[in-house]
C-alpha cells in the first residue's frame, strides 16, 4: 500500500493538492552536518512519499524513548521513498534527533499543514529565509526553478559564512550574514539583516505584483511583512509556533488572525498547524 496517495477529499484554501497525512515509522539513512549550524536528516520509508513546499512533519523517537510531544520540521525534499529535513540543535528534542545513527527508527506524521500558495504564472516572487526557515523555501525554489516563468529572487540570512549550507544552495541565493566570519573563499555575503538586503535592492521596487514568501524567526517575518506592505506586495509567512499535535486536535498552537466574518476588527485564534503554518501576512494580528 502506498501510504500517501493523492486525495479525493477537500482541498485546502491554498489550492494545491495536499496528501492525507500518514503515521508511520521511517529509518534514518543519513544525519549529517551541512553547515556549522545545520544538519540534514534523511529518512527512508516503505513506500513513496510526497509533499508540497511549506508543509511539515511531526518527528519523534521510536518506542519507549519517544518524547511526549513530537517536534515539527519543515519538509525539505522528498524523492521516491526518502524524505529529508534540515534542522538546528536547540534543545532536548533536536539533541535526541542529532544522536540518531543510520539504521535508527523514527516516528513520522505528515505531510501536515497548508503549503505556500502557487503564484500566478509570470508573477515575480521574492523568497526570504532566515536560519531554519530555509528548508521550506529551498524546497519551493527546487520545485519552481526552471518552471516558473516569473522572476524569482531568493534571499537567505545566516549567522556567518560557516552557517550557510553552500553546497545545497548552489548559486541561486543572495546571502546575508550577521557576521562575515568563516566566509569560504570565492563565496559572497552581505553583512546585515536579510530583510535589509531585500529592501536595498531598488530594482525589486519596479513591480507591485510581487509575491513574498518568508520563513524564519518572528522578527524576520515581521520585517518581511512591513517591507511587503510598504511596497504593495502580497506576503505569505510560514510561522514557527509551538505545537503539541501538529494535526489540529489540541489547540496548543494558536495564532491571532483578523476575521472579518466576525465583524469589523474581530480577531480570532487560528490553529497554526492546520490553518497554517503558512499565513497571508495581512491576516495576522501581530501583537507587538
Amino acid at each position, binding site marked *: *500500500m502506498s*501510504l*500517501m*496517495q493523492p*486525495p479525493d*477529499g477537500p482541498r485546502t484554501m491554498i489550492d494545491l493538492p495536499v496528501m*492525507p*497525512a*500518514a*503515521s*508511520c515509522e521511517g529509518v534514518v539513512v543519513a544525519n549529517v552536518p551541512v553547515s556549522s549550524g545545520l544538519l540534514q536528516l534523511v529518512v527512508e520509508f*516503505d513506500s513513496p512519499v510526497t509533499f508540497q513546499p511549506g508543509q511539515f512533519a*511531526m518527528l*519523534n523517537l521510536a518506542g519507549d524513548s*519517544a*518524547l*511526549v*510531544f*513530537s517536534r515539527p520540521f519543515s519538509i525539505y525534499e522528498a524523492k521516491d521513498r526518502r524524505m529529508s529535513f534540515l534542522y538546528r540543535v536547540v534543545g532536548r528534542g533536536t539533541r535526541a534527533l542529532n544522536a540518531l545513527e543510520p539504521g535508527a527508527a523514527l*516516528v513520522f*506524521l505528515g505531510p501536515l499543514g497548508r503549503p505556500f500558495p502557487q503564484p500566478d504564472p509570470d508573477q515575480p516572487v521574492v523568497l526570504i529565509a532566515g536560519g531554519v526557515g530555509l528548508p521550506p523555501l529551498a524546497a519551493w525554489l527546487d520545485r519552481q526553478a526552471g518552471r516558473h516563468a516569473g522572476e524569482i529572487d531568493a534571499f537567505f540570512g545566516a549567522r556567518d559564512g560557516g552557517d550557510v549550507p553552500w553546497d545545497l544552495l548552489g548559486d541561486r541565493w543572495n546571502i546575508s550574514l550577521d557576521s562575515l566570519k568563516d566566509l569560504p573563499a570565492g563565496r559572497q555575503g552581505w553583512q546585515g539583516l536579510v530583510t535589509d538586503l531585500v529592501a536595498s535592492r531598488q530594482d525589486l521596487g519596479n513591480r507591485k505584483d510581487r509575491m513574498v514568501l518568508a520563513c524564519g524567526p518572528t522578527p524576520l517575518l515581521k520585517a518581511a511583512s512591513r517591507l511587503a506592505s510598504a511596497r504593495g506586495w502580497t506576503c505569505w509567512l510560514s510561522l514557527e*509556533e*509551538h505545537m*503539541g*499535535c501538529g*494535526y*489540529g*486536535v*489540541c*489547540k*496548543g498552537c*494558536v495564532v491571532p488572525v483578523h476575521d472579518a466574518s466576525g465583524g469589523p476588527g474581530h480577531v*480570532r*485564534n487560528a490553529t497554526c498547524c492546520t490553518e497554517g503554518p503558512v499565513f497571508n501576512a495581512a491576516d495576522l494580528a501581530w501583537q507587538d
Partner: protein
Amino acid sequence: MSLPGWWTIDPTEPFTLGPRQFPGRIWTASGCFAYGLTGHEMKAEGFSSPYQGVGAVVTKTVTPQARPGNPMPRLVETNEGALNSIGLENVGFEEFLAKTLPALEEMGVPTVVSLAATRPEEFGDMVSRLHQAAVGFVHWHGVEINLSCPNVAEGGHDFGRDPDTVAACVRAAREYLPDRALLAKLTPNVTDISGLATAAAAAGVDAVSAINTVVGLEVDLKSGRPVLPRRFGGYSGPAIRPIALAKVDEIITRAKVPVVGVGGIGNDRDALKFFALGAVAVQVGTAQMRDPFTAARIAKDLAGV
C-alpha cells in the same frame, strides 16, 4: 506484546454501560482528539482510519458560550509529561449542537459529549437541549460532565472538589438523560476522590472517568517565572499514570461505581493496567496527540488480532 492469561476481553466488542451499548472499550480522552471530526482521512499501515476500533470519542469539553482559550504558550513538555493550559478553547454549545453533533452522527463517530459549566443548572439546560436535538441519533452514546478542569480561571478549580456540588451537577444532567450514558469526570486534585465518586454514583451516574489532569507548574529558569502565563497547568502523560492507577483503584474499591480509566495511557500495556484494576473502559489523551492512531493501535493490540 503477548497478552496476559487473565485478559479475556475483546475491547472492540460492544459492551453495556448504563442505558447504552458502546461499540468498544478503548476511547479517546477529552481535549486530545478535538471533536472527533479531525483526521478521518489519515493513513497508517493496517488501519482504515484513526477511528478504527475506537469505542468512543469524548469530545473537547463544550461550554455554554464559545471560549477563545488562554494566551500562548499553552503547552510545556517535561521529561515524562505534558503541562497544558489550553483554557477550554471550544466552539460553544450552540455551534456544537447545530453543526458538530449532526456531523458526528453523519460520520458515524461513537460520541461522548464532554460538557462543562459553572452552575449545576447549566448542565441540565445543555443536556436537555442535546436530548431534544438528537432524537434518533444512534452514534451519540453519552455525556461526560467535566467537573475538574483545573485551568479555567473563573471556576473549575474548586467546582468539582465538593461532593455536594458534584451530586447537584450529576442530578441536573441525569434528569434529562434517561437513555444515554452519563459519566462524571473527576479531578485527582483532592484528598478523597472516592468521596466524589460515591456522591456521583448516588446522584445517578453510570460511570466516573478518572482522572483529569493533575495541577502542575513549570518554571522558566531564564526568566525565573512560571512558563505558563496562567502559572498553573494540567499535568498529563506517562508521568501521571501511577497517580491515575491509584485513584482508579481507590474508587473501584471504595465507591463501587464503574470506572473509565484515564491517565498516561500510550500503549496496550498501559491500558491493561487499568483493566487489571477493574476499569470498564479506558481513554487515551496525551498519547493521541503524538500519534492519531494510538487508540486504534491499542484497540487492535488488545483485541489480539
